């Protein structure tokens, strides 16, 4: 066995309040593909940033070809020969393909000006090399299809003399044919002797391409080895680990009749044939990999995506929400994932935030009734134990947890039947998480029904009565959340791992 080309030893990276990486090791060998596996938030992207000079590790050492190195800037990583193809490609639409490839290190001619003929010729060579001879080097990037843009990003990554190539979920946005092309490219890089780090959620890709694997969980390295010696089930076990000690409130709520029935719900490009029903007093979990289409389905239910087909029945009546206002009228509310951007209006007073969707209740003939409005806001703020000096202060002055309460108060105030929570505890501290979970319990006790989209398995298992798993825009399976439902089963289902591997 050869020496590793790049070796990371005991890398630690801490952000305020979060330890993203804790003493992790990683080794990349020339001519081999190493797969980096882990759930969302396991620290994979942080590691990539530490390897490419975007983040500086707080502790630990990096060895390149046996020599200890530091990478104070992304440029330093570039010069060492470490290059990354990121999840979302960072390219410039208004520049040509060649300019995008050579931005920052374009060949210079006389007077230190850009040597265009040389740059275009070099770009041509690179594109041909990765099997993208159909892309012209001198057209603007905006005239290139999304899949081809990805190839341009690959060409850009290879335009430096790179020995280490990092691919962070490169197949996420590609179709099957394009994925095949990418695979043959990876094979070629491998035979050129490059050391490749391949990050993916999809087990079929990992088993097809990778020679080795490293598994991360909660910022720690929990296992590595040669893939040929390892069963899928062993890797899944490493990813999940023992169940995280997290207490979820127990609740004793009678599950009532269905309040929402969705049949054949489809969208031209985002999801198809979604069918589920939601019962009174139920928490229905929606699990899936990022990009499986869960949020898209919810936004469509909330009337934000008009071009959908299918039947939605709410309390026995067929509804077709064409706008959020329609959905709100039908008693459906949606708490979006990015609460800063879409939920709470930081520059408006708290009471105005709370009353915004209920203005028809607190007004008469279009005129506001301030007393009623304050009453409504005060009522829900106290029910949620919202801590604020005054309801007239701007919502932006509140802490994250209290902002979340403002959003919840605002939706409760319209007295909905169904409340959709999209990643309700993403990015908030443990204490606020527990408060949100308790609160969800209270919601269903009051006879509401909750749909909870979450990528956190403990949360899904701890809160849901049933779990809908989505994969690639389709419904994969619906599980009853009794004692027998395991994290492994959810991950298998979401990632599309066949049963035969067990």
């Amino acid at each position: 066995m050869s020496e590793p080309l790049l070796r990371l030893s005991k890398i630690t990276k801490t952000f305020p309040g979060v330890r993203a990486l804790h003493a992790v090791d990683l080794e990349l060998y020339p001519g081999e593909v190493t797969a980096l596996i882990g759930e969302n938030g396991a620290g994979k992207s942080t590691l990539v940033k530490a390897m490419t000079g975007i983040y500086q590790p707080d502790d630990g050492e990096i060895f390149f070809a046996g020599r200890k190195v530091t990478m104070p800037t992304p440029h330093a990583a570039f010069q060492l020969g470490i290059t990354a193809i990121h999840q979302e490609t960072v390219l410039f639409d208004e520049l040509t393909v060649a300019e995008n490839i050579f931005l920052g290190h374009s060949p210079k001619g006389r007077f230190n000006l850009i040597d265009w003929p040389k740059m275009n010729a070099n770009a041509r060579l690179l594109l041909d090399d990765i099997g993208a001879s159909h892309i012209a080097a001198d057209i603007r990037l905006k005239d290139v299809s999304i899949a081809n843009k990805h190839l341009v990003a690959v060409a850009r990554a290879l335009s430096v003399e790179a020995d280490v190539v990092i691919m962070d979920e490169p197949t996420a946005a590609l179709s099957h044919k394009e994925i095949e092309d990418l695979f043959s490219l990876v094979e070629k890089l491998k035979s050129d002797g490059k050391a490749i780090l391949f990050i993916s959620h999809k087990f079929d890709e990992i088993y097809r391409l990778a020679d080795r694997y490293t598994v991360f969980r909660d910022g720690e390295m929990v296992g590595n080895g040669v893939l040929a010696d390892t069963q899928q089930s062993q890797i899944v076990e490493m990813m999940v680990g023992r169940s995280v000690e997290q207490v979820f409130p127990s609740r004793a709520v009678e599950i009532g009749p269905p309040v929402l029935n969705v049949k054949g719900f489809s969208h031209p490009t985002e999801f198809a044939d979604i069918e589920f029903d939601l019962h009174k007093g139920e928490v229905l979990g929606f699990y899936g990999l990022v990009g499986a289409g869960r949020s898209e389905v919810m936004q469509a239910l909330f009337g934000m995506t008009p071009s959908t087909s299918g039947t939605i029945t709410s309390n026995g009546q067929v509804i077709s929400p064409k706008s959020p206002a329609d959905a709100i009228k039908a008693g459906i509310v949606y708490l979006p994932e990015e609460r800063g951007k879409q939920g709470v209006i930081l520059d408006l007073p708290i009471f105005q935030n709370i009353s915004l969707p209920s203005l028809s209740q607190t007004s008469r003939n279009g005129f506001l009734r301030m007393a009623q409005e304050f009453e409504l806001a005060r009522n829900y703020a106290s029910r949620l134990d919202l801590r604020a000096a005054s309801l007239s202060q701007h919502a932006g002055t509140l802490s994250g947890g209290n902002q979340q309460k403002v959003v919840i108060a605002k939706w409760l105030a319209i007295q909905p039947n169904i409340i959709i929570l999209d990643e309700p505890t993403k990015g908030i501290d443990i204490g606020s998480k527990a408060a949100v979970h308790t609160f969800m319990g209270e919601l269903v006790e009051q006879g509401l029904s909750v749909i909870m989209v979450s990528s956190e398995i403990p949360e899904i298992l701890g809160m849901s009565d049933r779990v809908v798993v989505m994969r690639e825009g389709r419904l994969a399976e619906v599980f009853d959340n009794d004692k027998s439902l395991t994290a492994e089963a959810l991950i298998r289902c979401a990632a599309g791992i066949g049963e035969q591997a067990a």
Partner: protein
Amino acid sequence: MKAITRNHEFWLAIVVMSMILATALRSPGFASPEKLAVIFNDSSMLIILALGQMVVILTRSIDLSMASNLALSGMIVALVNAAYPEIPVPALMLLATLCGLCLGAFNGALIWWIGIPSIVVTLGTLTIYRGSIFLIAGGKWVNADRFSEDFVQYTRIEFLGLPALSWYALAIVIGFFVLMTRTTLGRSIYAVGVNPNAALYAGINIGRTQFVAFCFSGALSGFCGYLWVSRYVIGSVEVAKGYELTIVAACVIGGISIAGGVGTVAGAVFGALFLGVMSNALPVIGVSPFWQMAISGAAIILAVIINASSQKKSRRLILRLDQDAS
């Protein structure tokens, strides 16, 4: 108290008053009630137009066609009055307002349905509306002798020492104050401007709100079309040419954020009064009108700097404060 001294409108009011007092030192009559009434009357149309522009800017848009809309609506009522002097003036006021409303709605519809940025739409209609004046009037002016007596008098009749023009402005200011602070529409306008995404999730139709805002700016422009023609007793292609930028200037000086969502009726009123007082004061103290342009330009930039620096102070409260009581 602290809230008041932080307030942009408060400081602007102080500045406007200081300008009046400083001018009065050089020219004692300047602060007399009669002269102040004249200044207010001079500023009335700008106040009305600034309120219309304010509503549009609050929704993250801009209406550059207001002055052209004003001139076109004004020309229409001028021609109607010249041809049919027997039509009562209130009907003509209504006609001017409706004309303006339609022109504003046209802007708004293009923005709502087709999704063209407002600056592009109104830059286009600015020229279209202005050009239409030439077409409907055949390039001719409507001169003073062709207007009926009532048409001219309806902006001039005095009541409690103020001309009718000033009373129209006052009524509209009160109306807009109620609109912006006491109605669901006003609330929606702020919500759309501050955070369109959150407004969308709260069930507010962003496009429709912007459409309504353009209807307001259009209707007020149309109404001012009558006021302008009546006050200056002339209808021509050149009426209020370039005035759209003065209107925007009044809004910006008044602390209405071009980024949307921030601004008040009081701000728009004092922004317009600032420009009105300045244009009255500078000739009195013997400053050339060219300085006037430079000063109003400086005032715009100063207003934006002051606003930007005051917004920086209100950062997020992350630290837990001990006085966490009510």
